[in-house]
């Protein structure tokens, strides 16, 4: 039982940058973890007040309801363009997008490559959950070969439906990309690493070093048809081989960053 007579200190509490509302995310969906990590970083850097978020179209479409910061909602795939419009008029504010894999790697590929190649000084939080969650689990560009989705009912057939896009690797070929890494949310250890990466990404923006993106492997228990815990195992066993965690682009200037 809890001892009330002993002095205590809080070692962890819900970040202030999160509004005290219940998300619409399914139980166990790690979109929630990603939200929490971004909020923690905004708190720790003390920049929540000068940050503008750009939500995308996907399950995270309502992200603006969950963060206690100014937010806009982009059209499907165009968040990097919208963020560019905001960042260019407010170069001194922090601007980030929060996008899913269908949003960023399918319909929004033109905009993300454009922003990265321009070295747009924005931060992108990229949620790779290997499917289109919001619309009910269709195939995404990130869907694994053989993975069953509602639009690849017999499993993704690479001959007809192609291969997973490795977004971090692709964007790392662009000179404008200052910091492009992949992390995962499937365990407390990886979550801690993910948070460090998100912090670095925002620091990169703060120091005007260029475009920063953190790809996060994330669960979709509902559409994967698994338990929350089982989904995390699926990331570890099935997704990691296709999406190796690591730093794909760390510009020299970023390498020198002291955080």
């Amino acid at each position, binding site marked *: 039982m809890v001892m009330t007579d002993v002095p205590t200190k809080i070692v962890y509490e819900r970040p202030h940058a999160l509004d005290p509302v219940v998300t619409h995310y399914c139980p166990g969906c790690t979109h929630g973890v990603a939200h929490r990590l971004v909020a923690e970083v905004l708190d720790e850097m003390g920049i929540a007040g000068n*940050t503008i978020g750009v939500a995308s179209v996907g399950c995270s479409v309502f992200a603006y309801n969950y963060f206690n910061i100014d937010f806009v909602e982009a059209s499907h795939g165009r968040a990097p363009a*919208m963020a560019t419009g905001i960042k260019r008029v407010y170069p001194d504010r922090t601007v980030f997008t929060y996008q899913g894999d269908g949003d960023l790697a399918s319909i929004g590929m033109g905009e993300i490559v454009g922003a990265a190649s321009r070295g747009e000084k924005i931060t992108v939080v990229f949620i790779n959950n290997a499917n289109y969650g919001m619309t009910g689990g269709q195939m995404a560009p990130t869907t694994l070969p053989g993975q069953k989705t509602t639009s690849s009912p017999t499993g993704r057939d690479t001959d007809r439906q192609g291969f997973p896009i490795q977004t971090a690797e692709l964007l790392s070929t662009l000179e404008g990309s200052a910091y492009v890494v992949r992390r995962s949310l499937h365990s407390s250890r990886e979550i801690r690493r993910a948070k460090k990466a998100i912090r670095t990404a925002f620091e990169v923006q703060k120091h005007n070093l260029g475009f920063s993106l953190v790809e996060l492997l994330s669960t979709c228990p509902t559409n994967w048809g698994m338990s929350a815990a089982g989904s995390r195992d699926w990331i570890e066993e099935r997704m990691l081989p296709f999406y190796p965690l690591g730093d794909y682009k760390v510009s020299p200037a970023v390498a020198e960053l002291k955080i």
Partner: protein
Amino acid sequence: MAKELIKGNTAVAEAALRAGLEAYFGYPITPQTELLEHLSARMPELGRPFVQAESELGAINMVYGAACTGKRTMTSSSSPGVSLMMEGLSYIAGTEVPAVLVDVVRGGPGLGNIAPAQGDYNQIVHGGGHGDYHFLVLAPASVQEAVDLTVLAFDLAEKYRNVVVVLMDGSIGQMMEPAELPPFQPLKTEIPDWAVRGTDGGEKRILTSINLDPPAQEVMNLRLMKRWQEIEKNEVRFKEYYLEDAEYVVVGFGTAGRISLSAVRAAREQGIKVGLLRPITVAPFPKDILNELTDRVKAFLVVEMNAGQMLEDVRLVVRGRKPVEFFGRMGGVMPYPDEVLTEIKRLVEGPLTTEGHPKDRWLARLSETIG
């Protein structure tokens, strides 16, 4: 300030700059490109953001973002590029943020050509994007008017939190005419309260066009519709030529209007009592003056550089009370004044009818000449 000889596209760009344009985003396309090129030099000179976007989709969504900060922002394009902006424009309309689009229309449909045309009237005036919304549409007929309306566009956009389109055609973009540029306006200092900028510890602001709950979306739609009623009440603009004693009235906007002016003058020289009504705002459409003219005159001739799009707006006002005839050239062909003169004479000679559809009669005639 003295008039200078200046190209339409360049003039519009410089006018926007002087009107306090704070961020431009665009993509090259003929016959609009000089506008982007001028700003690619001038905006950086003034330390203002200029971005050549990866595409028109990128451009309109950058504008969307900048518009959400309440800053004066614009983009410009031409027909195919504007088609690519339809989703973004619908979002901007649904988010109720101000933005300006300069549309230098070319011959369509498809890739078509780069010649002057007015074939995108319906796209801009009657909702090319999804959902119920209205753009405020200004249609200049000269470089000077393009300059003046560009400045006005920003004021109206902000007044109504509405998209304002400067709808011109390739000839106005490419033509050089003497024009007086506006004085430099200081940049806006205070930003509207709804604009995002970072909470700085205060109330958070959300700008979005989603309302999963239909009744909420309907309330937003209602707000848009009432705002439009306001605009229809306050912002109708048009120019009248020789209408006092006119028995026949030509209706044409933009370049078709000024071409008709030449024809009307020629007709007057021949003693024909004809006048010209040139809508400057095609949306809101000048319904009252047209209604009033309907009681007064014998017949109307609508002249457009398309297959008869504004024609239907005229017919909606005239409602069969007087004959309405149509003359148009399509796909980038510019009508010549003497062609319009011939049409005016046909009107005068008659016989005239209010039956059938003027388009059918026009197509029959056109087929003989070009078919």
